[in-house]
């Protein structure tokens, strides 16, 4: 077992990161004065992981869209009872989520921490899929999919992803489609489980009111050692150019919703996180709430306070995005294009960049205020080959020149505009 104490002089706090003998990475962050503990057990397995193999497989397999999310729904079920019932017996709140590149199971409790941690480690390590329980979930997930189909915010986002990428599986809806989930069976679920729910591919992260020694004792007792199986998940080759320039859908909404997505090459690991701060600071300086752009176009009524400019990133994708609600989305894009050209020539005011940097520092420190945010932050940092304090230092190290270089890469010619227009009632 390899144990590291990580310290932040800026926060005056420390936490522990352990590479457990089982293969699992464990991050522990006791927080004084808090009533609750938040524990999250996650795997680097999301909706983008549709084609993969381990060293035990001769060939790559491609599985139905939405299977990572389906697996997440089914994992709570055990042979004797549902894990949610076990959490409920102590009053703990439990839930799970699937993103493009991760799946995570978590609980929050103010008592019975040890019992709940045992439940978490037990059910995530012991899948129980039957033909019957797999079939039962189809109706529930179909309703979840349909709920999102009526959501203009979700559709403008997904339509945009589908339009900038040709092959990247981030263009696939996390929950799949009613048709794709109909192909999912228990054999496929076990195959995915055995591939991705290997402790070498996972992180357990705990923050708040708990005893780290007790947590480690329970881990020692319950974690089943896993062999590194040489997992390979394929993110297909992606042309550098967008698939479609503009996509539109009509749904019930008040104002048109728009999302301008800039296609950028994929970035990996630490560099992806570093560039995330560089691009976000650049976007905040150029289009943030105190930028000349924001004030001018807010005052003219072209944009409103839903306007946002930030990076959407994950394993295999890195997308600077500008989005919001506006009566004239094409005019917003025209103005954004003009502003990018102007700033490329004239430069972002250096003073504004320094203020954005200070604001970013404030946001990063504030995130350490919440047990859930800290636990998730440690897990996400680990998935990005970082520790939770690296973000603060990484953001502090961003230079004005780097922000300007990032600005230079923004190319409206290689962007997509996704719009959801109001459907008449």
């Amino acid at each position, binding site marked *: 077992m390899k144990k590291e104490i990580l310290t932040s002089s*800026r926060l005056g706090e420390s936490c522990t990161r352990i590479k457990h003998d089982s293969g699992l990475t464990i991050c522990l962050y006791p927080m004084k004065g808090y009533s609750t503990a938040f524990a999250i057990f996650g795997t680097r397995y999301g909706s983008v992981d549709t084609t993969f193999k381990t060293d035990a497989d001769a060939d790559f397999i491609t599985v139905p869209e939405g299977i990572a999310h389906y697996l997440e729904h089914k994992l709570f079920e055990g042979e004797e009872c549902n894990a949610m019932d076990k959490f409920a017996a102590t009053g703990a709140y439990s839930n799970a989520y699937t993103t493009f590149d991760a799946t995570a199971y978590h609980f929050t409790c103010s008592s019975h921490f040890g019992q709940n941690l045992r439940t978490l480690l037990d059910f995530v390590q012991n899948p129980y899929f039957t033909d019957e329980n797999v079939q039962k979930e189809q109706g529930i997930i179909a*309703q979840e999919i349909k709920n999102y189909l009526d959501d203009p915010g979700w559709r403008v986002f997904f339509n945009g992803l589908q339009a900038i990428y040709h092959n990247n599986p981030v263009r696939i809806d996390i929950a799949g489609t009613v048709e794709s989930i109909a192909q999912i069976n228990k054999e496929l679920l076990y195959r995915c489980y055995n591939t991705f729910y290997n402790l070498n591919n996972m992180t357990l992260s705990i923050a708040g009111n708990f005893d780290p020694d007790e947590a480690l004792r329970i881990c020692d007792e319950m974690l089943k050692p896993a062999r590194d199986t040489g997992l390979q998940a394929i993110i297909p080759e992606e042309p550098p150019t967008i698939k479609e320039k503009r996509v539109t859908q009509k749904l*019930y909404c008040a104002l048109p919703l728009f999302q301008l997505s800039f296609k950028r090459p994929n970035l990996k690991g630490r560099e992806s996180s570093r560039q995330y701060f560089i691009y976000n600071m650049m976007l905040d300086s150029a289009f943030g709430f105190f930028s000349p752009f924001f*004030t001018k176009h807010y005052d003219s*009524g072209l944009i409103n306070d839903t306007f946002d400019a930030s990076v959407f990133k994950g394993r295999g994708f890195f997308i600077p995005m500008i989005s919001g609600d506006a009566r004239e989305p094409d005019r917003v894009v025209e103005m954004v294009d003009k502003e990018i050209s102007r700033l490329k020539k004239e430069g972002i005011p250096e003073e504004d960049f320094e203020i954005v940097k200070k604001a970013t520092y404030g946001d990063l420190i504030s995130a350490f205020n919440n047990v859930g945010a800290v636990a998730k932050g440690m897990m996400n940092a680990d998935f990005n080959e970082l520790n939770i304090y690296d973000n603060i230092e990484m953001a502090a190290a961003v230079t004005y020149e780097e922000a300007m270089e990032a600005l230079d890469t923004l190319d409206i010619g290689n962007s997509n505009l996704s719009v959801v227009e109001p459907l008449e009632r």
Partner: protein
Amino acid sequence: MDNLYNRHKIADEVYFTSITDTKFKINRVSVLFITQLSKNAAVNAVIPRMLTKCSAKLDTMTKLNKRLAELYSASLTFNVFPDGDNQIIEMSINVLNNRYALNSEDILRDSAQILLDCIFDPYLENGQFPAQSLELEKQNLMDDNDAEINNKTQYAYLKAYEEAFRGEPAAVRSGGRNEEVAAVTVESAMEAYRRIISEMRAEIICVGESDFTGLDTIFAEAFGKISRRPEKYEKSAVSLAKNEPVRLTETLSIEQCKLVMFMKTPLRKRYALMVMQSLYGGTESSKLFQNVREKMSLCYYCYSRYGYAKGFLTTECGVDGNNLEKAEAECLNQLEEIRKGHFTDDEVNKIKLFIINILKSSTDTVSGVTSKCMSGIMYPENAVTIDEMIGNINAVTNEDIIEAANSLVPDTVFILRSDKEAAE
């Protein structure tokens, strides 16, 4: 209440409360104005939008937002929301603790001053809000009101809510009706602004790491400069069920139907109803989740909400049109099960532990502490401290739960149908 949270009067119908908890890395200062929902809701809702855009001292949005960013991303926000028959107009600021300042700035004091300046020293032209800015914020409010349709679950809930409380102040939308927003003038806006700061009851709630020393004096001075003529505070009235339940249907071109049922209760036993609602549809171990979702696979979401102020309980789900009747029947059947006492001590204990866990969790965020504090101020009859609330939850008996379920009377059903389902 007053001693516990150090709540004290600083002006006529203006109270200052501070809650210090050194575990937090941020501080939050909230100013909440409370009035009854009325025809003035629309104009009231425009005002915080105007006030949080700039002030006389920071007279453009750029200057204000830049200053907030310099203060380590201090976040100045507004929220206008209903609480029973009342409209609450909240303006607040969230800031990083002074100890994390890189250049020894007094972040809290400077930010609180910005909030004060925005509220008490707004940017005016010839004694009025600038007409152009006012028109812009009126449009933004109308767009927000229209955006109810973006979230179909919430849209269906609000439609049912409006019908359930028709004729009562609660039926007035906290953002007002768009015709009323459109009718706001520079004169009526200024009149509303004066009414907000001089006539409405106000609560200032500070939560965070700081001890907030001296902030009460600054707020007292600001309110002291205003001639306060407080309006009479009207407590929300419990709503009586209609003689005949109302059933409304609207059809839209959507993928999933929404069912919302409102029931009302004259029973004022908040904790019994809270436990009953959680047992019925408040958690993953609830009757609705376990049966309508897990056993019958009819829904992704199926839950209930309880509103103490007006005395109501909802049942809500998203379902395929051809399963609507089945879902509605099963939801009602599950309520009937509780009415008949068909639940176990074990189920009730789980629910109580869950509620207690949620109550304790609320002490771990500044927004949770602010909201619990406000609830205690608005409804002091219900208990104040978390420990008192936990005691009240634990004291609920199975008979109380059965009584609570039997007190519910059907009032309104709203169904948002899909034309796609109808065509199939």
